């Protein structure tokens, strides 16, 4: 056995220490599953062994399945093999439960997913009283359910309702709460966990599980003749539909597995669970979520796009030019990450106003007990406000976040560069102006780069790094190292109007506004957008961004592009609202919506006068397709034009940048989910019906014809 160390002590208690080699965390590799079966068999059959304690040789007890392996199973399409593997683990755990020897789990660190399921199959569970130790079944977060008995043992231990809460939400709990809920038997100091488990084994030579004893009943009842259970299932099903919009199959599958399983004997119940588990692995949603949210996001966090040449270089001192909303946010997150920040604006008073943002957020964090006041104080000490460019001396990186106008940006670029050392990098946080053009104001364009944050900076996880025509590798590496310091997720894109994220996202809001102009019922547009999984509807988001800003950008783009500008009916709508109606967006208190004081916003009733509802309204599925396909097609164009270079960046950017629905795995995974040939055929129909923006790019048509996909068989970001 390579993954489990087995030592038998003088009392005949076997200590099974899980330590999967070459892995930072214990995960369920095929080798581990085989070793576990071997160890269990040995304990069960060896007369010299009285029982066993299962512990971990790593800091955490065990995470669940190896997602790098699971993510490829969707493409392999072999449900029988998956079922056999799942049933294999279940059989090992049943052998452990029913072999007549006591097994106790000494949970020294975090146990999640399959790791917790191993513990649940032990007859006794003792958890270490340790800061940061959590227990949970987070499978739904990657589109799966527990497949090692979690959906069956947990409700049999703690009752259906509390078990459903844990599993459908994928919530983690601390040992004390787990003990209170009833799936941990004891919480002891970390150093005593193994001994406590060992003592229990010695004291309980003939352990059985409650569900293997005669007359066992699920705590709180089970089955559809139990009113409380019915209530739980009815309300649970509705809430899951509300939360998932029918886009994520895993949470409702948890309810089904628990409902169907808890009226059966445990062995039959595990069969139900295994089949549901495999059915989810065969669903593209789990593949999409594992691939984008886990595998590829982790790769991005580890800076898979970083040029190998330049040496790793942390930012010690950061300059932020402009203390407006974005600059204030950048200063805050950077100071929190330990950097010295120089926050510069035209006056110290203005810079101080920007620092107030950090003061406000830190006060809230202290109030909630998330930060000590000492820590908050040192964060604030790290932000130095100024109006003097000389204070930028010694900065490793300077980010400008001044008004979106070339002249102003050129001015601050020159002033800042005058103070910078040769190796320092200058970055623009522009969201609209091409980087190559801005870099013309720089005396060292190879050190000039775009670092595009999203608003609010402290909440949004993505940073879009924009490489201008002359940007060099050192700048790219420095920008990425900086993003890693912030613990945010970077993608790297090439220069283009709107770069990648703003460009594709604007397609979404424009399509929505366009439908409004066509006479589509605005409630239908907004509701369908949310049901498709977008965080907010296209009209609501335009109000949030402000129609005025939207109109400003449109005018600028028109001016820049001249005859090349492709007009959209959406432009007329935005112009009307800003210039004629004076409904400039949420901040102005009126846009596509009304914002009555102290009440929920409502669609402005006047919409129907300006854009009367068409007699025939589109099917919701058609509205949904227009909203999602338009974004996917624009992404393909970005890929074709080299704005994004890797499908994984496109997917990560869409999900973490503007909230393209995670169940799709991102804009390109969405196309793979539909299937390339089917997507192309549908886009052709949409182009015919609604215009050129749905035209299929040649590269996509070719891929579909040749039976290729964006990722091929690969899951990873490479």
């Amino acid at each position: 056995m390579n993954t489990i160390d087995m030592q038998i002590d003088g009392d005949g208690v076997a200590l099974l220490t899980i330590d999967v080699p070459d892995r930072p965390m214990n995960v369920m590799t095929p080798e581990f599953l085989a070793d576990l079966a071997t160890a269990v068999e040995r304990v069960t059959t060896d007369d010299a062994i009285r029982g066993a304690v299962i512990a971990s040789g790593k800091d955490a007890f065990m995470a669940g399945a190896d997602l790098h392996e699971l993510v490829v199973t969707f493409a392999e399409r072999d449900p029988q093999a998956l079922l056999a593997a799942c049933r294999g683990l279940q059989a090992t755990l049943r052998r452990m439960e029913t072999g007549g020897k006591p097994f106790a789990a000494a949970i020294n660190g975090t146990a999640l997913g399959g790791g917790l399921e191993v513990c649940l199959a032990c007859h006794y569970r003792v958890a270490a009283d340790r800061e940061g130790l959590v227990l949970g079944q987070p499978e739904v977060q990657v589109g799966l359910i527990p497949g090692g008995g979690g959906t069956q043992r947990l409700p049999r231990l703690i009752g259906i309702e509390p078990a459903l809460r844990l599993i459908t939400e994928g919530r983690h709990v601390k040992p004390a709460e787990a003990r209170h809920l009833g799936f941990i038997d004891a919480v002891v100091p970390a150093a005593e966990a193994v001994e406590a488990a060992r003592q229990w084994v010695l004291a309980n030579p003939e352990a059985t599980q409650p569900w293997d004893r005669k007359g066992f009943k699920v705590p709180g009842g089970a089955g559809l003749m139990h009113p409380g259970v019915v209530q739980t299932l009815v309300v649970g099903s509705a809430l899951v539909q509300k939360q998932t919009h029918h886009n994520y199959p895993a949470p409702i599958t948890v309810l089904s597995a628990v409902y169907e399983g808890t009226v059966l004997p445990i062995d039959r119940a595990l069969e139900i669970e295994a089949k549901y588990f495999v059915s989810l692995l065969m669903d593209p949603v789990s593949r999409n979520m594992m691939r984008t949210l886990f595998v590829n996001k982790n790769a991005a966090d580890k800076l898979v796009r970083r040029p190998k040449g330049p040496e790793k270089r942390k930012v010690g001192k950061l300059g932020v030019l402009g203390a407006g909303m974005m600059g204030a946010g950048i200063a805050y997150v950077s100071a929190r990450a330990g950097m010295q920040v120089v926050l510069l604006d035209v006056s110290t008073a203005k810079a101080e106003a920007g620092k107030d943002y950090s003061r406000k957020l830190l006060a809230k964090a202290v109030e909630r007990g998330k930060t000590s006041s000492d820590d908050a104080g040192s964060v604030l000490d790290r932000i130095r406000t100024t109006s003097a460019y000389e204070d930028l001396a010694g900065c490793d990186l300077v980010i400008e976040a001044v008004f979106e106008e070339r002249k102003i940006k050129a001015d601050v670029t020159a002033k800042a560069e005058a103070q910078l050392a040769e190796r320092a990098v200058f970055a623009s946080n522009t969201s609209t102006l091409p980087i190559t053009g801005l870099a013309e104001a720089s005396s060292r364009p190879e050190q000039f780069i775009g670092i595009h944050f999203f608003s609010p900076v402290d909440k949004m996880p993505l940073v879009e790094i924009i490489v201008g025509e002359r940007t060099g590798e050192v700048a790219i590496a420095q920008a990425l190292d900086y993003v890693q310091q912030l613990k945010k997720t970077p993608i790297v894109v090439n220069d283009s109007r709107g770069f990648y994220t703003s460009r594709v996202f604007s397609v979404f809001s424009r399509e929505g506004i366009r439908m409004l102009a066509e006479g589509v019922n605005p409630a239908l547009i907004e509701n369908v957008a949310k049901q498709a999984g977008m965080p907010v509807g296209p009209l609501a988001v335009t109000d949030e961004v402000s129609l005025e800003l939207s109109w400003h950008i449109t005018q600028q783009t028109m001016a820049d592009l001249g005859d090349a500008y492709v007009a959209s009916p959406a432009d007329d709508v935005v112009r009307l609202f800003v210039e004629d109606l004076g409904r400039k967006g949420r901040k102005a208190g009126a846009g596509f919506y009304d914002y009555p004081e102290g009440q929920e916003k409502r669609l402005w009733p006047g919409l129907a006068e300006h854009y009367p509802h068409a007699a025939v309204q589109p099917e919701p599925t058609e509205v949904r397709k227009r909203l999602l396909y338009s974004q996917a097609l624009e992404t393909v164009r970005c890929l074709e034009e080299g704005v994004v270079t890797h499908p994984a960046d496109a997917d990560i950017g869409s999900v973490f940048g503007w909230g393209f629905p995670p169940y799709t795995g991102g804009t390109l995974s969405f196309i793979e989910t539909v299937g390339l040939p089917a997507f192309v055929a549908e886009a052709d129909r949409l182009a015919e019906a609604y215009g050129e923006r749905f035209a299929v790019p040649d590269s996509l048509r070719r891929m579909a014809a040749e039976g290729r996909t964006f990722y091929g068989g690969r899951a990873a970001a490479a």
Partner: protein
Amino acid sequence: MTDAYIFDHVRTPRGRGKPDGALHAVTPVELATQVLRALRERNDLDTGRLDDVVFGCVSPVGEQGSCIPRTAVLNADYAQSVPGKQLNRFCASGLEAVNTAAAQVMSGQSDLTIGGGVECMSRVPMGSDSGAMHADPAVAWKTYFVPQGISADLIASLHGFSREDVDRYAVESQRRAARAWENGWFAGSVVPVKDRLGDVLLARDEHPRPETTLEALAGLKPSFAAIGEQAGFDAVALQRYPQVERFEHVHTPGNSSGIVDGAAAVLIGSREAGKALGLTPRARIRGFASIGTEPTIMLTGPAPSAEKVLARCGMSADDIDLFELNEAFASVVLLYRQKLDIDPEKLNVNGGAIAMGHPLGATGAMILGTVLDELERRDLATALVNLCVGGGMGTATIIERV
């Protein structure tokens, strides 16, 4: 095909479905027994001639379980040769039982039957039988299940019926029911429920509130706002109907059907069977139909089922003198009136379940009898009886006086 005729019908008064309701101490089988006895006694019926007793019952568990019509047949001292069968088409069960009893006659396989229903909602609460439709998560997910009250509010939200619209309808239901009672228009068919000592427990519907005003109704709290918002049902309904900007919860206990106890029975047979027993045919059952519709909005089945049965009978809505649609919720009736373009003076002319209550398994048989009595009183010919049904169904029957 043999024609099926209605010879007689009886119903109990409806008792408030609460522990203080007049019928709460009466078992369901006793209620069913008393309507069967009444039919026998009013018609001097030789029960040995009966081929079947079909009863609707929506929660056939506990004391309503185990085939309650056969139990009642034995308990009522009917001939032991009379079988019984219980069926469930939710709220239309009572009408479906009449239709099924008639169908046995029409097909020539029975000569004389009874259709009817029973529901003691105070003793066997709604939902006591549970079911996959709402409680199996996979089914609820697939069908976008929401409780009926949410569906009724969805109809109002979708079709723009305001709180005042539905309350106004409810006031009218109360007014019409009170007028009918005052004038004795129900007297010919309502049989008082008696206790063991022969004393009358209830002789009149207990649920109506004739004093109801629009102002009083306006003060009631919406019944389904809390579950709609907190349990997520509004969101589920909007997923099916994304054209609705916001959900308006307009239904209250004042404009929805009341929860009551009651039973009803209808004597049906061929002309020949009636002749042999000296029974006079009062109406012919011209046709009936049920239909399935979208289950989330659930309660829009009446109009399509009406159109289906009208087409089957070669008739149009203009050929119908009186319409009787169960007042499950006011919005259901308002939508029906709109869809079939019915003159309000022809629809539910003596009120309905908003005033008098809706004993689920019995209501269909009750309202069929009520409208037959009214056809006779007004000397009109045809009536269409209709109910909306859980799970997205509708059931309709056309009767014609002879």
